[in-house]
């Protein structure tokens, strides 16, 4: 087992444990902080897989922006604690678990199909050398600004709309102009 694989396993364990903490921790603030840990780990996975630009973008967007917004929302909504202790919905518990297990069964089946798909090319997969960071970034930029220019502009418009919309929604309604 190489050092890279060992690092991957450690980061993956951190991600899974933090995700479980985000789902099952009692206090909502702890859940938000566990989510930050998951975001950090996912950024690490991007770096390990070799996608350095996305690792940086993950740190900027998720740890920088989304985590801050999450913590702000937890504090602004003024709920220090969950009432009633358990974070689990009691009424729809069995229905939810049924839906979830059906989904997991489907996921495992698809995953096995993917494994079968991968096996013939596994030697090829092992032989693929990740491109150099600079070349990868250049390819990414050219793809984004030539082939995907229209979606890029659309998504910038989406960000503008979200910026205005979030301010309008979160504003106090009886705000004196």
């Amino acid at each position, binding site marked *: 087992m190489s050092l*890279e694989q060992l690092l991957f396993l450690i980061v993956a364990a951190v991600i899974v444990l933090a995700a479980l903490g985000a789902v099952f921790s009692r206090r909502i603030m702890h*859940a938000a902080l566990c989510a930050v840990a*998951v975001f950090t780990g*996912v950024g690490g996975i991007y770096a*390990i897989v070799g996608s350095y630009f996305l690792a940086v973008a993950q740190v900027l967007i998720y740890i920088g922006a989304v985590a801050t917004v999450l913590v*702000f929302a937890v504090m602004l909504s003024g709920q220090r604690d969950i009432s009633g202790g358990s974070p689990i919905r009691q009424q729809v518990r069995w229905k*939810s678990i049924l839906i979830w297990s059906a989904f997991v069964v489907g*996921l495992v089946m698809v995953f096995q199909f993917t494994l079968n798909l991968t096996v013939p090319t596994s030697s090829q997969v092992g032989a693929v050398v990740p491109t150099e960071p600079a070349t990868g970034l250049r390819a990414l930029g050219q793809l984004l600004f030539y082939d995907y220019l229209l979606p890029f502009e659309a998504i910038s418009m989406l960000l503008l709309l979200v910026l205005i919309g*979030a301010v309008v929604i979160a504003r106090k309604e009886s705000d004196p102009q």
Partner: protein
Amino acid sequence: MIPLSWVLTLAGLLFGIGLLGALLSTNAVRMLICIELMLNAVNINLVAFSRYYGAQQPHGEIAAIFAMVVGAAEAAVGLAIFVAVARNSKLIDIDKINLLKW
């Protein structure tokens, strides 16, 4: 080099945990956190396939960037809605929010 199946297993685990939390949580903020976890899991898959199969033309990473931006936008609007709801009713219990229920 990390086997592709390891990365896919990690993404599947993360997506499953996120789905379980999104289905089971009482708190709206926690529900949104779990949706973000699921988006991250999908992004891991996109990046992994892009790195392993399309290193010269990283279409998957472009898709991951777009998913990331849409996820951030969704978090901003969703949390703004929850802050607005929490101003009226003190708790964000998704079984008790019936503003848009007809």
